[in-house]
């Protein structure tokens, strides 16, 4: 069928005529940012010709890349990255989810209390939440509890947004506070610690990266190749058209928010496992960083446009910038400010590019 003109209509399906994918732009931006930091490393006097992501002088691990730093960058973004996979789907459907950060905290607190060991160094677990029945449960129990809690919060978010006229911003802002409240109430502010060995394995070493990669592939597949994904884009693009086409918009929105919250719950499991503890204050700014990753990845906040590949690249840009700031020894106080500026810049640049593309066609 490809590259073939069709009779009277002159119709074509021409792969070469496909629109330039936005993801290539983001990848190029990523490369440019890496090169800028690389250059700064060579030019700035206090850097002593240290390299950022490359490894010219030594051949410790036989590659030109500085694998150690690359690993740290990916590891740093993978947990928020998991959240951003869900946030991406919500934004594509025309919504927004502000509740994911506190949801991480609430889920981590609850899940951790089902993952505790009975004995710590031979002594009873000092942080025990429940009685003896909750000690040393199989690892599947906390996982299922976490996913169910995430699904429940997502369903409530989605139901409020679908069945009332409350804007997603307000509904999930309410859930933001509710979840932070749940996280604090669960143990009256006490941290929950000392998980079982099998639970601790879930977030150990490079495991967060593996979860992020697997879930990214799964979400990319869902959005690109399934009816679920097509309807998510359709609803974000033109909700009335979607409804008129017979799509059950309300049910679909609930499903999208459920999937997003379940991804946040998975992030909570991985994070609490990695930290070996859960605290009510964890996940601070995560919802905003997750949205920022999607935005850097070229998503449209009005819905209908964006992709998982873009968001993964956005997460990488996020991580590279964060790591680069530390590498050029930028004061920690300035890092958040600079990050904010970069996010605004990314959106302005994207809008400008969209307008130019629109005026060209």
């Amino acid at each position, binding site marked *: 069928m490809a590259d073939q003109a069709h009779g009277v209509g002159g119709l074509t*399906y*021409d792969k070469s005529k496909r629109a330039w994918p936005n993801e290539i732009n983001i990848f190029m931006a990523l490369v440019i940012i890496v090169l800028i930091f690389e250059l700064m490393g060579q030019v700035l006097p206090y850097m002593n010709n240290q390299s950022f992501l490359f490894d010219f002088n030594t051949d410790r691990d036989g590659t030109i890349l500085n694998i150690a730093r690359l690993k740290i960058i990916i590891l740093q973004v993978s947990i928020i990255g998991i959240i951003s996979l869900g946030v991406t789907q919500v934004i594509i459907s025309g919504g927004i989810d502000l509740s994911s950060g506190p949801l991480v905290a609430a889920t981590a607190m609850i899940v951790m209390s089902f993952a505790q060991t009975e004995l710590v160094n031979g002594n009873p677990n000092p942080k025990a939440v429940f009685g003896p029945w909750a000690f040393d449960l199989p690892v599947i129990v906390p996982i299922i509890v976490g996913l169910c809690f995430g699904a429940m919060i997502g369903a409530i978010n989605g139901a409020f947004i679908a069945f009332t006229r409350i804007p997603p911003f307000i509904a999930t802002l309410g859930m933001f506070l509710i979840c932070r409240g749940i996280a604090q109430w669960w143990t009256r502010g006490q941290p929950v610690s000392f998980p079982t060995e099998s639970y601790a394995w879930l977030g150990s070493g490079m495991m967060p990266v593996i979860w992020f990669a697997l879930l990214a592939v799964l979400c990319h597949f869902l959005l690109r190749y*399934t*009816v679920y994904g*097509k309807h998510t884009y*359709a609803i974000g693009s033109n909700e009335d058209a979607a409804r*008129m086409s017979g799509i059950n918009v309300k049910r679909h929105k609930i499903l999208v928010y459920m999937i997003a919250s379940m991804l946040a719950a998975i992030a909570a499991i991985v994070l609490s496992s990695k930290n070996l503890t859960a605290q009510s204050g964890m996940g601070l700014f995560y919802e905003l960083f997750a949205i920022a990753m999607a935005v850097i990845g070229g998503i449209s906040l009005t819905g*209908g446009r964006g992709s998982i590949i873009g968001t993964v690249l956005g997460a990488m840009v996020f991580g590279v910038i964060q790591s680069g700031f530390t590498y050029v020894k930028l004061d920690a106080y300035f890092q958040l400010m600079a990050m904010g500026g970069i996010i605004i810049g990314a959106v302005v640049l994207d809008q400008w590019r969209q307008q130019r593309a629109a005026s060209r066609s």
Partner: protein
Amino acid sequence: MSGIELHDMGDIILETRDLTKHYGGVHALEGADFILRKGEHVAIMGDNGAGKSTFVRQITGVEQRTRGEIIFDGKPVHFDGPLDARRAGIEAVFQTLALADHLDVPDNLFLGREKTKWDWLGPFRLLDYKAMRADTLAALEKTGVKIPNINNTIERMSGGQRQCVAIARTASFHSKLTIMDEPTAALGVQETAQVENIIRTLKEQGEPLILISHNMRQVMDLVDRIIVFRRGRIVANLNKSETDGQDVVAYITGAKTQPEYDIEGVT
């Protein structure tokens, strides 16, 4: 609904009896009696505000009628919304297009009725892109619609191309009744010709059509019968073979009214 007698519904696809719509004190549509036979193409003409669009909005369930009956495909119907009407088999192209701007042509054509594989996956069943693409090309070719690249998203298309996609989508549904509300109002000469080709294709396939249009040449070219609305009432029901453009204009402007519709004369 017991009082309705269903006489001789054999070849009638749509009938309205005393269809009336009041917006507060405004009588936008008053006592419209209308019959459409299977395979028939009928044009609705009239000045702005004559009640054409109001009439269509009652039939397609966009609005709820004040009074009257709608009998579609042999049954009295009461649509809660446009989706209800569409499920019953009434397909409408509205002046505001119902397309998803960020999706491409096959996606829009098959929106809500995607071809899928692995249906046991429920909402996560797989899209059969290949089949949808092939069917899209076939459907567009059949209707003669020219779109340079069906992989373009709708937002990258001209107004005319968008309209063609919307109409091709409607035509490919094989609905029991198609309604087009000024489908060529914003189009150039070539694009108008394409849309008219689609309408001819529908005629060949024996699919009934209600066409709202201001374009006299188009109406005379395409339809079998012309209904004229004036100030919320039907004032003429004209067979194309027994009328001409000047005659129709006389009814539209109020210079003439068919005797059977002359309310002032009756009351």
